[in-house]
């Protein structure tokens, strides 16, 4: 077993060790990176995790199958709804509950709205990390609209707690369809601003092109999923490969870029927002009537066995693995979080580059630290 002191002792003359975080003027949460620098060139990046480790996996061993869903909202809080969706689906898969069509459509609509909100915040924070302070406010203008829609139906703006095993907790608010349509209009009006202000800016492109290169083989080997892997050309969208709910019937593209650098990852996320808009447009006028929740017992007991379900969150593939011994609480739960694997590729991506490039690469990986630490 080695300790950090012994690790630091291995540096050569002329190396500088600096800490970035855990208190960050930028966003990303409590991430502590110990960076070994030689001048301005990075030699090694070592993440120190655990500042927000709440042992969710151990906690869930004493929560019932209805209760543990809500701990996942606090993991990757930007795609809280999608996390809850994964947990609800695992329980439904184990108990073989059939989710009514209306609930499925509502879940997918909320998923895609959450994905857009998460990417908006990513875009604003990414631009702010690179020094352009204005896009943050523009991004939040759209995000606030989505939050208000969520608040009306689900009751909360961030940790929505809307999914239950069997469907959704309550029916849609009567204003929902109209508000979403207004949001679509606003989005289409403003999306060109994003390209003009940030994407087309030559300073921005110079900061991002050729920076943080990740090849396709390395992406698969490091377990990188989501837009970070799609920027390197790895096709890994769970909605396409292992479709769940009604994704099979929807028309949308999986955005792939082959360049593998930060700019490619940036473009993937930007275009994914457009794809989510396409999905919402296909569904918003055709929400079927019916139940919003299937009838389930009050106390759920999963049969003995193991169950796994993946979903595509805004960051990548989230997997929920439950080992059940037949009781009302899980015997072991493991959350395969996308951020954990994405972070492990950071050292590989940034060795040999400058400190400013680290910020750009970290931004395009879109890390949310509670997701990594659980």
């Amino acid at each position, binding site marked *: 077993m080695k300790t950090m002191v012994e690790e630091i002792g291995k540096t050569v003359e002329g190396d*500088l060790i600096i800490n970035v975080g855990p208190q960050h003027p930028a966003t990303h949460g409590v991430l502590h990176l110990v960076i070994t620098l030689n001048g301005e060139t990075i030699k090694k990046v070592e993440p120190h995790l655990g500042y927000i480790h709440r042992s969710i996996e151990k906690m869930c061993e004493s929560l019932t199958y209805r209760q543990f869903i809500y701990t996942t909202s606090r993991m990757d809080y930007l795609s809280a709804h999608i996390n809850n969706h994964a947990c609800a689906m695992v329980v439904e898969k184990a108990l073989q509950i059939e989710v009514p069509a209306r609930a499925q459509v509502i879940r997918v609509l909320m998923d895609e709205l959450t994905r857009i909100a998460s990417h908006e915040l990513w875009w604003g924070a990414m631009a702010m990390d*690179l020094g352009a302070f204005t896009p943050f406010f523009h991004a939040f203008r759209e995000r606030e609209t989505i939050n208000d829609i969520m608040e009306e139906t689900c009751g909360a703006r961030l940790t929505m707690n809307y999914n239950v095993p069997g469907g959704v907790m309550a029916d849609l608010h009567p204003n929902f369809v109209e508000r979403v349509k207004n949001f679509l209009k606003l989005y289409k009006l403003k999306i060109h601003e994003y390209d003009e202000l940030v994407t087309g800016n030559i300073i921005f492109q*110079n*900061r991002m092109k050729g920076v943080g290169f990740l090849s396709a083989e390395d992406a698969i080997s490091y377990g990188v999923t989501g837009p970070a892997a799609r920027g390197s050309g790895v096709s890994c969208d769970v909605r396409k490969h292992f479709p769940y709910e009604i994704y099979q019937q929807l028309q949308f593209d999986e955005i792939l870029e082959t360049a593998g650098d930060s700019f490619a990852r940036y473009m993937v996320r930007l275009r994914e927002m457009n794809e989510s808009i396409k999905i919402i447009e296909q569904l918003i006028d055709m929400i079927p009537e019916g139940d919003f929740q299937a009838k389930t017992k009050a106390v759920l007991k999963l049969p003995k066995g193991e169950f796994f379900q993946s979903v595509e969150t805004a960051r990548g593939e989230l997997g929920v693995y439950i080992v059940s011994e037949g009781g009302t609480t899980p015997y072991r739960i493991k959350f395969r979080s996308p951020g954990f694997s994405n972070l492990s590729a950071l050292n590989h991506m940034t060795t040999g580059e400058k400190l*400013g490039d680290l910020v750009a690469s970290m931004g395009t990986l879109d890390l949310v630290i509670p997701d990594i630490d659980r």
Partner: protein
Amino acid sequence: MFSLESLTTIVHNWLNKTFQPNLALLIEFVIVGVLAIALFAMLGLVLVLMERKVAAWIQIRLGPNRVGPKGMLQSLADTVKLIMKEGLTPDGADKFLFNLAPYIVMISAMMVLAPIGFAKGFQIWDINIGVLYVSAISSVSVIGILMAGWSSNNKYSLLGAMRSGAQMVSYELSVGLSILSIIVLTGSLSLNDIVLSQQNGWWIFKAHIPALISFVIFIIAVTAETNRAPFDLSEAESELTAGFHTEYSGMKFALFFLAEYINIFIVCAIGATLFFGGWMPLHIGSWEGFNHIMDYIPSSIWFFGKTFFLIFLIMWFRWTFPRLRVDQLLNLEWKYLLPISMFNLLLMTLVAIMGWHF
């Protein structure tokens, strides 16, 4: 029309009547000194508030609007706060240099106020090497920044100060060359002569293409000189906390902060003087009637109007563009701006010799 020139003449005559000539001179020194410091302080306050309001306007929000009508007394509140804060000196810091650094930056900023002409006849010191003086004194602030970074005993400050030093020294070259191209036309380094030579039109209109190129290079280089975004990586908050002034707090931090804004004012004033005519109203060649109308607007309003327009331009840059990486920044200077400005100087010389300007 009311003009500041008549005011100075009135005060001068009254003083010479009432006191002996030497004493009158001394009193004039004192008055000018007090006015300079007052201008310094006022400008600092106004520019800080202007920055916050401009930033808010660009970012679709309101900015400070609680303290005073429309938030105008916000700067005053900030000053009181900074004065009351504890000024910490870190343990391992070199005490003498640590305390000296903000004053060097401040003093060099104040000294450059001397040759600038604020209005017709309202200039503290019309030195015959005005432009050279400005260029030389503004280079002294680099020493202050390096001192601050070194004496803080902090890795981030050191990194920030070194980046900043490299940046400022490189971009001074481009500033100098673009200023030189206007000097070629005027034939004199004195700022008053430069303004008077724009009697029949501003240089940016008279010497068309080379002056425009000069102006663009000047604005870019001057944004880099004063460590403003998109060249502000020495204070890049997301990377290095606060760069060379991380360890400063209280009044010393306030001095750095104010000195930055005064530097912006000074370089914009120089830009306005060289390219846009300083306090000279907009005259077009020999259109007597038009020129006469333009003369009704007092020259101080012309000067401050032009300067604040350039300041607004620089603030606009800050809130629009992301930040350049340090090697990209130095790349920009040495591989692009410097060759272009040298070529432009040649072009301007050609234009001046052949008389191809208005």
